[in-house]
């Protein structure tokens, strides 16, 4: 599978990554190379093999339903470019 520059442009836009037009062909080529490698992996017969989700067997870690966090409004807002009355203030998003 090969990725053209239009697809590369679209993927960049979906990921909100700014890519200049002249950089798109190289990016598309890199994508194609990665997908080529994945296609190669697809040739391996994994019928009946459980997908491996972890290198060491382990169970998903869980927490109890207890409130242990929060109450740190100033810290949460500390890195925000703009905040007002306890809210993050962002350029208007109109639906």
């Amino acid at each position, binding site marked *: 599978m090969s990725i053209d520059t239009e697809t590369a442009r679209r993927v960049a836009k979906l990921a909100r990554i700014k890519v200049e037009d002249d950089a798109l062909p190289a990016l598309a080529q890199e994508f194609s190379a990665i997908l080529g490698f994945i296609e190669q992996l697809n040739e391996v017969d994994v019928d009946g093999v459980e997908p491996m989700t972890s290198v060491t067997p382990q169970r998903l870690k869980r927490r109890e339903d207890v409130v242990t966090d929060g109450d740190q409004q100033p810290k949460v807002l500390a890195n925000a470019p*703009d905040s007002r009355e306890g809210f993050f203030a962002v*350029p208007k998003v109109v*639906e």
Partner: protein
Amino acid sequence: MLDLTYDAPAPKTIAGATSDWELVIGLEVHAQVATKAKLFSGASTLFGAEPNSNVAFVDAGMPGMLPVINEGCVEQAVRTGLGLKAEINLNSAFDRKNYFYPDLPQGYQISQLYHPIVGEGEVLVEMGDGTARVVRIERIHLEQDAGKSIHDMDPHMSFVDLNRTGVALMEIVSRPDIRGPEEAAAYVGKLRQIMRYLGTCDGNMQNGNLRADVNVSVCKPGDYEKYQETQDFSHLGTRCEIKNMNSMRFIQMAIEVEARRQIALIEDGQEVVQETRLYDPDKNETRSMRSKEEAHDYRYFPDPDLLPLEIEQAWVEDIAASLPELPDAKKSRFMADFGLSDYDASVLTAEAENAAYFEAVAEGRDGKLAANWVINELFGRLKKDDDKGITDSPVTADQLGGIIALIKSGDISGKIAKDLFEIVYTEGGDPAQIVEERGMKQVTDTGAIETALDEIIAANPAQVEKAKVNPKLAGWFVGQVMKATGGKANPAIVNQLIQGKLGL
């Protein structure tokens, strides 16, 4: 237990210019999971807190923060699945749904696209007119809620509150088995009732704890049956999804107006475009959400921060064993054990608290009489009293049971019982004691009633003559005796005596 079997309701039909059209509706209901903490963080889920105070760094999408799943949320999802008679998947997994919006700081929502925790189930949706629809559930998955954006506090800025960010939602996805606006509302109502019984979602629609996306399409009569036979969606029309509705009334209005829009388009020779729309209740119309169209490529992939979620069958069985009696079972038991009508049983089982109250009143007493008193007198009185709920009732089940016992034993008449109820409601106290102290007991002493009647007959010879000619006028004497005895005479005995004395 009674077997509740119903006929299916007729689908809603809208007459178009060229033909009749039928509605096909599927719902995605987002129910906030009732837990103390969020799905992947230890921040509180409490509604109405100071903005951004219920936020952990995980919720704020800070770099390096890792999600740890809240087992309480998993348990609630399993409990809900069991309540909807659904298959529980012992292995499920979380995926990332990627999109950018200010109230989603991670840049993705953690959801379960490929392996949801709950599979197929079903819900019986009664329409209250003796018909009911079995709506198939396709799946329930766990996912994170987004934050809240406020657009009207400043002309140039939107304000973002992340308190809701990361709160656990159950998305309950139905098959397109719903055939009209009323059915859609009844379906949401039934889900809400079941989840409130289970304690898995408080169902508060005003706070946004229960919201629905509604998929609507229209088809010609006969097409839907072809779909049901084959499960082939090509028999159905193109659907539009109306997003994020949190009112039963708006759900119904939006479905109706969206169906009419689609019919007008098709009859005009145009095509319905599959898209996301927004309902505007002020204008009663749906609008395309074009801004979201491009973002629809969500590029789902398994979340690398989270291992698959494996749960044990034994744990599921423990949860199943702790399930309360659910609405359908309770309703049919009330009908069978207490001889209640379908309607009365529905009213009494609408909320688990009401049902428990009724059972305490009816226990060992006349079930139908108890149902009448709870529904007509108590609910009516509570409604007048600032729309109080049963848990705020000043009359306990014991007290109301006492009143009913006094009626049943013949100690008080139905009319006096209403006065007694009002006294107990406003002043409290033991009903039997009140009756005793205030001399409210029904007079069953024939001698006393006879004396009163004799005086009335003696004082009204003209009425006696009239009643002899027209026996219907005997009622006047009943009224007079009641008046003379302060309403306490036993009506059956009064009638009997009048018949005898007047020779009717």
